[in-house]
C-alpha cells in the first residue's frame, strides 16, 4: 500500500514523458526504501519466519529441530480440540459481529440528531473501545461473580436463580460474546454515526413525498442501502477483531469449562507457551492469517463489485 502510493506518481510522470534516467531511478528507490524496509521488517519477515516454523518440530527452548513438512497441519486436521476451537471462534465471531453491528447501528440511529446530550452518550459508549480489555475483564469477572456479582443480583430481582456464568458450559461462550459486544459496539456506533451524517436529508424528504408509510419503510428505502458500505466495513473490521479474541478468554475462562471457550488464539497460545510446541502453534497462526486473508479479500471483492455496479 505505502510502497505503491509512494512510487506510482514518480513512475507515471517519468514513463509518460521521457525515458527514465538512472539518477531518478535511484531517487525513487531512495524514497520508497524506508517504507519498504519497515514493511519488510514488521510484516514480511515475521510472516516468513512463522510459516517456516510451522514446517518444523521446533519446541520453545529446544536446541535441535527437524524439518517435518506438513506434519503439523496434518496433526491439526486430526485434532478435535483444534476443530472445536475453530467452531467456537466462528460462533463467537458470528455472535459478536451481529451483536455489535446491530447494537452499534441501533444506538447510532437513536443518537443521531438527539440534542445536546448526544456527544456525552457517544463518549460513554465509545469508552469500552479504548479501555484495556484485560482490566475490563476483571471488572466483568466481578459483575458475573456467582455469589456477589451485580448481574446475578439484578436478575435475582426478577426471580432468576443465580448462575455461575463463566463456569457453566452453556453460558460461558455467550457471556464472553456479550463482553465482546459490549467492547466493540461503540466502534460500530461511531462509524455508523459518520455514515448517517453523510446521507443527504433530501433523500428522507423524497421518501416522505414518495409516500414511505413508516419509519421502517424509510429506513429500508434510504438509510440501510446508503449505509451499506459502512456496514460492510464494520462487519469486516469486527469479524477480524472477533477472530482475535484472546484477552477475555485468558483472563476469565482459560478455554474452559471443558473447552467450550477454547478459541483459535487461545489454542495457539496454549500450544506455544504452555505445551511449548512452537511448530504447531505456528501452524495455527498460519491458519489464522489465512482466515483473515479470506475475510479481507471477500471485502475487497464485494467493494469491487459495488464499484462496477455503479
Amino acid at each position, binding site marked *: 500500500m505505502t510502497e505503491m502510493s509512494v512510487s506510482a506518481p514518480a513512475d507515471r510522470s517519468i514513463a509518460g514523458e521521457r525515458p527514465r534516467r538512472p539518477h531518478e531511478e535511484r531517487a525513487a528507490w531512495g524514497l520508497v526504501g524506508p517504507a519498504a524496509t519497515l514493511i519488510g521488517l514488521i510484516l514480511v519477515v515475521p510472516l516468513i519466519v512463522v510459516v517456516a516454523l510451522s514446517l518444523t518440530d521446533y519446541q520453545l527452548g529446544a536446541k535441535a529441530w527437524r524439518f517435518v513438512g506438513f506434519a503439523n497441519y496434518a496433526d491439526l486436521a486430526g485434532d478435535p480440540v483444534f476443530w472445536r476451537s475453530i467452531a467456537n471462534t466462528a460462533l463467537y465471531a458470528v455472535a459478536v459481529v451481529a451483536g455489535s453491528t446491530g447494537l452499534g447501528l441501533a444506538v447510532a440511529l437513536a443518537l443521531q440528531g438527539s440534542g445536546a446530550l448526544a456527544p456525552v452518550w457517544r463518549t460513554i459508549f465509545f469508552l469500552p473501545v479504548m479501555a484495556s480489555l484485560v482490566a475490563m475483564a476483571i471488572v466483568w469477572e466481578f459483575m458475573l461473580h456467582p455469589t456477589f456479582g451485580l448481574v446475578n443480583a439484578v436478575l435475582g430481582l426478577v426471580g432468576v436463580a443465580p448462575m455461575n456464568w463463566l463456569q457453566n458450559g452453556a453460558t460461558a461462550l455467550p457471556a464472553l460474546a456479550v463482553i465482546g459486544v459490549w467492547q466493540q459496539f461503540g466502534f460500530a456506533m461511531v462509524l455508523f454515526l459518520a455514515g448517517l451524517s453523510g446521507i*443527504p436529508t*433530501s*433523500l428522507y*424528504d*423524497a*421518501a*416522505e*413525498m*414518495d*409516500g*414511505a*408509510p*413508516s419509519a*421502517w*419503510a424509510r429506513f*429500508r*428505502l*434510504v438509510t440501510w*442501502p*446508503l449505509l*451499506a458500505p459502512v456496514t460492510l466495513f464494520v462487519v469486516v473490521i469486527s469479524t477480524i477483531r472477533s477472530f482475535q479474541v484472546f484477552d477475555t478468554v485468558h483472563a476469565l475462562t482459560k478455554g474452559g469449562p471443558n473447552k467450550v471457550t477454547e478459541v483459535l488464539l487461545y489454542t495457539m497460545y496454549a500450544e506455544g507457551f504452555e505445551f511449548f510446541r512452537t511448530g504447531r502453534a505456528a501452524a495455527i497462526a498460519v491458519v489464522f492469517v489465512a482466515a483473515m486473508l479470506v475475510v479481507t479479500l471477500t471485502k475487497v471483492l464485494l467493494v469491487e463489485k459495488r464499484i462496477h*455496479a*455503479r
Partner: protein
Amino acid sequence: MARIEIDGIEKRFGRTPVLRGIDLDVAAGEFLSLVGPSGCGKSTLLRIVAGLTREDRGAIRLAGEDVDHLAARDRDLAMVFQNYALYPHLTVAENIAVPLVMRRLTTAQRLPLVGRHLSGSRAAHAAIAADVARVAETLGIAALANRRPGELSGGQRQRIALGRAMVRRPKAFLMDEPLSNLDAKLRVEMRSEIASLHRRLETTFVYVTHDQAEAMTMSDRIAVMMDGAVLQVGTPDAVYADPDDLRVAEFVGSPKINVITADAALAAALGVDATRAPDPDGLRLAFRTEAVRLVDPTGAALAGRVVHLENFGSDLMVHLAVAAAVPIVVRRDPHDPRPRIGETWGLSIRPDRLLVFDAAGRRLRSVVGRGA
C-alpha cells in the same frame, strides 16, 4: 389537479422570521412561479405546502380541504428537488417506481424476493412496471431504465426526478429550482419541456426559482417574494410592465430596469406631475430599456454620454452615464446607426412606460398611471 390556498403562513427559524404572513391562491391547473432572491423563503414556503416543514401560523388548503394535520405523504403532492434526490442504489426504473411501490403495495408485498410471490402481488408489480414504462417513454428515458443515477448526466437525472413525480397522478407538483444545476443551454430546453408537461398533465404546478427568466417564460402567474413576504402576484406581463414595488421592477426583467432619482423639476420635464406626490422631490422614476430612445441631446430633458456598448446580436445595449450613479441602458436594434463611445445623446422616455415610485419604493399610480 387541485387548488392550493396558502393562508397567512408565518414561519421563524429560531428568532429570525423567514415568512411573514404569506397569502397565495393557486388556481387548479395553474402554473405559479415563486420567484425571489436567494434566502427570501421560497423553499421554506414550498416545504410548508408539501408538509415537510411545519408552519408557525396560518393554514394550507388543498382542493378546499385543510391539510395542516396531514403528514407530507398523505397530502398527495409530488415534489422535484433541486439536487434531484434520487435514490443512488436504485436503477432508473426502480427510482421512478418508488412512489407506486410505497402506495400500492403492502409492507409484506414490498419485501425483497418473497414479496413478489404473495397473493395479488404479481399483478400489482406488473401494473407498476407498466406505469413506469409509460412515464419513461413520455420523458424519453426508456433506454436508461436499468442504469443507476450515478451513471447519468445532470439533464438525465432531472428527467428521472420528473418521472418519479409524474408517475403518480398527484394533486399538484411542487418544484424547487429543478433546473438550477443544469447548464444554460439545457436549462432553456428543459424550460419549454416542463411548460409543455404542464399543458399535457393539466395539473397545478408551484415552481420555485430565483431565475426571473424561468418564471417569466413558463408561468401563468408569478409571485415575487422578498424578505419573507409576497410583494406582487400577477401574470408575467403585469409583473414586468406594471410592478407594484420598485424591488419587483428591479428583480424582474433582464437587463435590469433603469432607475433615476428625480427632483420635482426633472420629474416635471419628463411629464410627471410631481405636485400630486406626497414628497415631490424624492421620486424614483423607472423605465425599461426598450421604453427609451436615443435622440438629439439639444432640448432633451435627460442626456448622457455613451460609456459602453453591449452587442447581443439581436439587441444592442447602449450604456449612458447621466447624473445618476448607475448608467442608463438603452436597447437598440443593432442594424440602426450605432452610437459611438464618448458621444452625448438625449434620452426620450415613453411617458406611458414611465413608472413612478416614492422614496420607499412604493408605486405611485396616481401621479402617472399607465397610458397617462
